[in-house]
Structure formats: structure tokens, C-alpha cells
């Protein structure tokens, strides 16, 4: 049957033309996965509970201030668990006013317990607020990391949320993975805290600190022995100025020591707060705290009205650059933790590409030769169809911006083996029909139509597996599922439709053929 021959030829030509168009130019059209071009794949878990705790603690500070403003003595305000705030009132006579104030100030909280006899109020964060804070923490974290990566300078980074509180970061072609990781994962919470000189740190380590104080450490590395030492400091818990008040930060070089340091410019409010702080505390030491570690604790010599501070501390030039970046991009609202990391060096990626190409070429040649040896001219037809299948596979990947990964290369190799299976099913059926005494045309006709059902069966089962793999898979495995599914689907077009067209042209023409080369 040579039905709609012109239409069918036209369709094949269009498909080939579109494929070539999508694939041109070949180098930039196919997206290589991180395992092939080298780079970092990171899954970060956002510790959203920490964001909640911080929020609750900030609310505690606010409520303490409000109560004290109204002259209500507070003996203790503390966070309990993650989202509860316990307020202990010292003066029972002002209970009613305290209760009103607490309820007013803590609009985002529900009252959990109010024990007048004990003078204790326990508030808990509203569930809706909790969800909101959690979501915000992840979203802001994402934004902040994006900012940092942009400033670090990575071509085509991908930063996206994964699940509820995970962030997936993919950085292709990064040369120094350790540095990029440190840059992304740093919370970068900058705080300026006053050192409490009344307390001896060594004693405090042993017997505890006064209320409102805490112990933080400074890491000091001995230049000769490279031994690391942790020096304790007793500082006030209250942070007077934080990273939120930073307008910009940049790296400068100290003229005397030629060591790099980071110079921080505060915004207007921050500058004022810093100026007030330094004015009121001349002679005391100010600890510069980054993520709970003291960087340095210089003495305040005089009021600093310029709204500018310097962070020194024996940085390398790269460390100083990165610190400036994270300070500019801002702190993460909650700390992040690396849950999964896959880093592939560029040399391994290049090796993988080379070996993958060798494997694909070798399997193509093997299958080509086999099909031609076994099925002669029909085998050649199947080979042409296979070539078209590979073209379609690559073009579809380019069209959908799918990523080719190393397991994806395995998927292509597998496709080569499986795509000709469809032709084998059809050819074997044609041979059987010929043996059964059918004419050449009849055998071709029956072979294609009878085998079609089986072809669909085999396609469905592989596609079921492919879909489940795609659903389940992470990066590289997903790439495998993608190539396998596209290849198998394309073989319906190439091994059935296209092969049939070639058979029709060769054997179904007006001149009757004497033999079928199969």
C-alpha cells in the first residue's frame, strides 16, 4: 500500500529539518550535566527551626523592653522549646497590666498559659506564623545564596527550592569547590557585641556566666606551630549592631601590614547605632562576631561617627573577598547544612565524555554491522532508522533543554540496542509470514501490522520503568530516564513509521519485486 506517500515523505523531511535546526550548532545545543562538564551539586537543608527560635527570641527582647518601659519588673524571659516564650513577672501587683502588654506586643503569639500565682505567662507562636516564618526562611535563604553566587561569578548557576526546606544548588565548572561551598554555606551573621570585662573568661568557663552574658571563642592559629587555640571571651548577649545594618562591604589592604581586611559601611540607622555605641563605651572592647565566632575584639578608642568599621583577622585575600561578598549579600535567615554533595572535577568530566562517545560509537558500529549481516538490505533500512532515532533523540533533548548526564549516555547506548529491537520484531514476523507462503507485499503488510501490537507492549513496559525512574531519580539518574524514554518513544516513529515508508518505497512500487532482502 502506498497510501499518502507524499504526505509521509513530507512529514519525515519536516522532522529531520526541525531536528537539525534544534541541534545546530551542536556544541551549545546539548546541555551537559555536572557529572560531564564538572561542577558542584549541593543539596542544602535549611535549619528552619533556628529561624523560628531567632524570631521567638527577638520577640522576647521586644516584650522585655515594652514591659520595662511600663515599669513592670521582669525576672526572666526565656524561649522554651522552639516556639514557646515563657515570661516571668517579678511584681505580682502589676499582673493585669503585664498580661495586657504581653498580649498586645506578641500579636503573632497565642496565650498558652497564664499563672497569676506564679507570675508566669507562656506564649506560643501561632501555627500560621510558624509556617510563614519557615517558608520565608527558605525563600530568603534561596535569594541570599543566589546573590552570593551571582557576586562570586559562576556561569549559568541553578539555585532552586527542593521539597519543603531544601535548596538545590548546581554550579557548573567551578574550579575551587571548597571555596564555593564555604561561600554558600556560611550563615554570615555579623554581630557587634560588647566584651564584659568584669568577668574573667577562665572563671566563667568553669562556673558559668552572669545573666545576659555568654561565652564566645576566638580561634587563634599559632604562626609557627600551626596549632589552633580557642580563646574564650565573655560578651553581652545583646548585639548592638548586626549584619542587617550593613550597607556595603569591600576588601581593603592595610598599608602597614599589607594584610587584607574587610571594610564595612553601615546604613544610616546602623551608622547611628554604631556611633552611639562607640560613644558610650570608650575604653571597652567590642567583639566582632561572625557566626558565633569572635573575629577580633578591638578596644574602642573613641567615638566612631563615620559609620564605618573594619574587620581584621589575618585573612587571605580570597577569604577577605568572600567575607565581603557574604556581608554584602546578607546573612542567611537560618543556618544551612550540606545534606548531599557531588563534585566532579573538570578532568573527570572530560574523560567521561570521551569514554561515553567511544562507547556509543562502538555500540552503534556493532549493532549496524550485525543488523546488516543478519537482515541484509532490510538491516540497512533498520540502520538508517537507527541513525534517525539518534538524531531525534539528541534534537528532542536540545529542544526541551534536557540535560545529558553520564548515566544518560548509558541510556543512549541502551536506546541503540533497544530501538533496533522493534525492527527485529517486525522483520522476524515478516520472515515468518514469508515462510507461511505469503507474497512479498503480503508478508510486509502482515509483518508490520501483526508486530505492531507487540511493539506497543514492549514500549509501554520500558516507558513505565522510565517514568518511575524519572519521578524518583536525582540529577544523573534522571538524565538516564530522560534519554531512555525519548529514545524509546522516538523509535516508534523511526522503527515503525519511517522503516515502513522505506519498505513501501522499495517494495510496494509499481514494479513487482522478485525477492525481499531480509
Amino acid at each position: 500500500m502506498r497510501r499518502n506517500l507524499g504526505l509521509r515523505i513530507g512529514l519525515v523531511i519536516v522532522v529531520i529539518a526541525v531536528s537539525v535546526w534544534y541541534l545546530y550548532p551542536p556544541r551549545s545545543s546539548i546541555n551537559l550535566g555536572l557529572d560531564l562538564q564538572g561542577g558542584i551539586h549541593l543539596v542544602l537543608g535549611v535549619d528552619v527551626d533556628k529561624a523560628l527560635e531567632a524570631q521567638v527570641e527577638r520577640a522576647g527582647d521586644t516584650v522585655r523592653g515594652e514591659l520595662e518601659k511600663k515599669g513592670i519588673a521582669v525576672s526572666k524571659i526565656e524561649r522554651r522549646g522552639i516556639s514557646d516564650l515563657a515570661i516571668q513577672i517579678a511584681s505580682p501587683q502589676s499582673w493585669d497590666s503585664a498580661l495586657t502588654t504581653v498580649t498586645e506586643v506578641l500579636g503573632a503569639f497565642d496565650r498558652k498559659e497564664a499563672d497569676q500565682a506564679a507570675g508566669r505567662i507562656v506564649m506560643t507562636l501561632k501555627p500560621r506564623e510558624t509556617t510563614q516564618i519557615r517558608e520565608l526562611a527558605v525563600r530568603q535563604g534561596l535569594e541570599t545564596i543566589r546573590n552570593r553566587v551571582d557576586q562570586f561569578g559562576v556561569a549559568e548557576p541553578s539555585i532552586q527550592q527542593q521539597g519543603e526546606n531544601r535548596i538545590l544548588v548546581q554550579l557548573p565548572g567551578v574550579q575551587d569547590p571548597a571555596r564555593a561551598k564555604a561561600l554558600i554555606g556560611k550563615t554570615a551573621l555579623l554581630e557587634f557585641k560588647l566584651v564584659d570585662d568584669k568577668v574573667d573568661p577562665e572563671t566563667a568557663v568553669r562556673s558559668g556566666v552572669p545573666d545576659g552574658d555568654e561565652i564566645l571563642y576566638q580561634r587563634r592559629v599559632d604562626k609557627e606551630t600551626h596549632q589552633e587555640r580557642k580563646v574564650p571571651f565573655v560578651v553581652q548577649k545583646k548585639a548592638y549592631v548586626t549584619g542587617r545594618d550593613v550597607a556595603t562591604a569591600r576588601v581593603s589592604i592595610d598599608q602597614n601590614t599589607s594584610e587584607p581586611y574587610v571594610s564595612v559601611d553601615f546604613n544610616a540607622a546602623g551608622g547611628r547605632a554604631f556611633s552611639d555605641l562607640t560613644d558610650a563605651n570608650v575604653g571597652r572592647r567590642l567583639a566582632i562576631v561572625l557566626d558565633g565566632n569572635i573575629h577580633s575584639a578591638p578596644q574602642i578608642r573613641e567615638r566612631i561617627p563615620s559609620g564605618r568599621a573594619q574587620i581584621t583577622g589575618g585573612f587571605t585575600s580570597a577569604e577577605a573577598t568572600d567575607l565581603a561578598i557574604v556581608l554584602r549579600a546578607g546573612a542567611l535567615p537560618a543556618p544551612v547544612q550540606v545534606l548531599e554533595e557531588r563534585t566532579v572535577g573538570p578532568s573527570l568530566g572530560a574523560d567521561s565524555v570521551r569514554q561515553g562517545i567511544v562507547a556509543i560509537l562502538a555500540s552503534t558500529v556493532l549493532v549496524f554491522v550485525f543488523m546488516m549481516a543478519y537482515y541484509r538490505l532490510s538491516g540497512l533500512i533498520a540502520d538508517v532508522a537507527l541513525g534517525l532515532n539518534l538524531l531525534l533523540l539528541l534534537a528532542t533533548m536540545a529542544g526541551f533543554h534536557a540535560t545529558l548526564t553520564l548515566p544518560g549516555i548509558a541510556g543512549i547506548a541502551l536506546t541503540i540496542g533497544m530501538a533496533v529491537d522493534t525492527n527485529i520484531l517486525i522483520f522476524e514476523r515478516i520472515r515468518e509470514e514469508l515462510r507461511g507462503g505469503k507474497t512479498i507485499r503480503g508478508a510486509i503488510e502482515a509483518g508490520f501490522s501483526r508486530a505492531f501490537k507487540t511493539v506497543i507492549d514492549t514500549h509501554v513496559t520500558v516507558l513505565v520503568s522510565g517514568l518511575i525512574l524519572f519521578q524518583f531519580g536525582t540529577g544523573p539518574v534522571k538524565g538516564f530516564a530522560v534519554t531512555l524514554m525519548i529514545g524509546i518513544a522516538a523509535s516508534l516513529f523511526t522503527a515503525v513509521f519511517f522503516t515502513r515508508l522505506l519498505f513501501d518505497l522499495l517494495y510496494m512500487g509499481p514494479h513487482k519485486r522478485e525477492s525481499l532482502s531480509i
Partner: protein
Amino acid sequence: MFELFRNPNFDFIGRRRWAYIISVLFILAGFGSMVAKGGLRYGIDFSGGTLIQVRFEKAVPVDRIRRALETVRMGESVIQEFGDTREYLLRLPATEAGSEEVTKQALAALAKEPELGPPEVRRVEYVGPQVGRDLQIQAIYAALWSVAGILAYVAIRFDMLGGMASVAAIVHDVLICLSAMSLTNREMSLPILAALLTIIGYSVNDTIVAYDRVRENRTKGARRKGESFATQINNAINQTLSRTVLTALTVFFTTAVLYLFGGKVLEDMAFVLTIGVVTGTFSTVYIAGSLIVDWQGWRERWMARRKKAVAKA
């Protein structure tokens, strides 16, 4: 016409006992080795941990690396040659410190050995314990869903019996692959899971082709009078034998090439695919058809016994 089999007429079903014995022995050997080795080995994808692939400038004996790593005492670490004696995989256990610290310590330890020379870090993979557990659960779900999907398809397309036999063949293939992995000391990883799931979808293909033939023969009335069920199945398997073997052969070519030339990283995946293709063909010819025949036999005997019991009463 070049033909692999000309009118094949092998008595597959009649010799199914041998097939069962071979399969069971292989699986027993595989599981025996698993028990001896303390279970199937899980790669870091599922167990969590850190994997570092390093390449030195010149060949390095493995003892050197072991000694260097022992100085930092990171618990049980596995050092494995990877491709040649310049390249090694260091597998370090999951620790509290996280990947950064572990990698840094290991590399610092290697750098301290002056004879080793600075290694090039080719790959670092870290999977935290939480992600490893998540992946384990997801893997089990993925496998179950695949099997359920295939079972549903075959059951709808043919019948429940065929579906069950296909699943039995799938389970057989997966067990053979797992046994082969354990016998050759390979670790369960994400790419291997992908290979197993692909095998699940692929191995049922030939089974479907054979079933389809049984059905076709019945509707065509090709079934001679008095032909037993076993003979019907055996005929269908023989009639579809050349396409079963040929389709497997082309896939076998490609997976074998992948195993040989695809590079060390893909080697395990290609290995499992290759084993899976071979056992998938074997299970089509022997397991799936044979099981149906045996099942039918049991059922007939059971029905006969019940009839007898009813008659007696």
C-alpha cells in the same frame, strides 16, 4: 536468509527442572556470599558517607594511602583502586563533622606523605545520613511501583496469571542481578538501581511476546486437539525464540560495549544491565512460561483431589 534458529523445537518446558535448579543454585550462591560479607554492600548513596576519587601523578601502592589515612583515624575507610594504580577511590564513613571536614582531613593526611605527591581530586561525593535514608525509602517505592505497573499492564493486557508469572520472572531477574553483584563485590548505588528498574521494564518484553503468541495460536485454532497447556507454551516459546534471542543480543552488544569502554564510573551500571539482559532472556524462556505450566498443573491436581474428596463424602 541467515537464520539463528531454523524451526526450533527445543523442549524447554520439559527441562524446566534443570532451569529451576540452576537459578536457585546461583541465587543461593549469591545470597551465601551476601551473608558471608554481612549483607549486600550499599554505596554512599544509600548508606551515607563521603567518597573521594583521587589521581596521583605516578603509580602509588595502596598500602601507602592506607597508612597515610590511618594517621587521621577516621574510622572504617575503604580504599579501592579505580582503573589503574594512579587512581583511587577513598570511601570514608559518615561523620558528624560533615563532608568538608572529612575531605580536608583526608587530603591533608595524603599531602603529608612526601612520596605520594599532591593528588588531583577528581570527584567528591557526600551523602548525609538523612538523604541516604530518604533515598533508600524512595528506592523501595520506585521498585514496588515499577513491579505494580508491569503487573497491572500484563494483567489488563492478558490475564492475572500472566501478570503474576511476569512478576515472578522480574523478581527472579532482580535476585540474579543482586547475586551477581554480591559475587563480584559491587555496591548498590543509584545508577545500579536505575539499571535494575530498566531491567524490570525490559525483561518482561520477551515474556509478553511469548504470551502474545500463545493467545494468537489459540485464536487461530492452531492448537491441535489434545495439545496440553505445556506444549502450547513450549511452542510459543520456540516460535518466538529467534526474536527473543536477537533482541536480547543487540541490547547485550551495547551494554557489553558500555561495560568494556564506557569508563570506570559507568562500569557497575553496565555490568548489571548486561547480567539483566542475559537473565531476562533466560527467565522468559524458562521461568515465566514454566511457572505458568506448573501453576496450572498444581491447580488441576488440586481440583481433582477436591473432586475426589467431594465424591467420597
